[in-house]
């Protein structure tokens, strides 16, 4: 699986966006766009593996 684009810190630093943009994003799920449930499920499984791998790498002492 591909690595993420950059650190969360970097990503958070470039998240300047207007209310209008956020509203558009929030309402995007109202659009009638067909999607592939198999893709959604496969992606979900890959992402959960990724989360677990990252959390294991951090170790229990960093979890809080």
């Amino acid at each position, binding site marked *: 699986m591909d690595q993420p684009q950059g650190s969360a810190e970097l990503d958070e*630093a470039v998240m300047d966006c207007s209310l209008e943009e956020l509203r558009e*994003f929030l309402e995007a799920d109202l659009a009638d766009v067909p999607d592939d449930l198999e893709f959604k499920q496969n992606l979900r499984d890959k992402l*959960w593996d990724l989360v677990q791998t990252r959390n294991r790498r951090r170790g229990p002492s960093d979890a809080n």
Partner: protein
Amino acid sequence: MSRRSESDCRRSERSDEELVEAIRRSDEEAFTVLYERYYQRVYNFVYLRLRNHADAEEAVQEAFTAVFGAVASFRGTSAVLSWIYGIAKNTVNNHIRRTVAQKSRIDRAESELIRHLESSLAASPEDDLTLRRCAEAVRDEFEGLSGWQAEIFAMRHLDGLPIAEISDRMSRSPDAVRSSLCRVKRLVVAAVEGGQPSESRTVAERSMA
């Protein structure tokens, strides 16, 4: 997948920030809730810009990988909503930039290949060697493809079948067929560029920069 329904997940009263905290403790239910809360939003947002399901799936995977890959180090200096939105927006913009650059690269490589083929009628031994290297590089790339990708490429470019017919025969969506053709084409272009003399490669690399 959790047994909770999609609508249950989206109605969960836990805030995004609480879910992120729980995901850091490997709480799978929290992960499912956050994923369900944002999947359709991100998918539609991306699709409405790219207008192609194959590209949208690629970009959605990239965006969510960035989100969940960085969840452990998310510091909360912005709201989760705007963080995810920003990542989705950046991913789409990068995807569009890459597509434009790729199209230009493919067009250029096709012109180069045609030029080589046209000049091969009066080819020098050096040109012959270059063409042989290109052919070997292309053959190596094809050997590395999965069977169905090579089959789709052959149906389209050797048999001249339309996308719809290939889609029917291979039981894959037209977008998946197009996406596969595009990937194979990229491999062929890279192989052809790799088989060219260093002078041509330098020109190609410079124009891609």
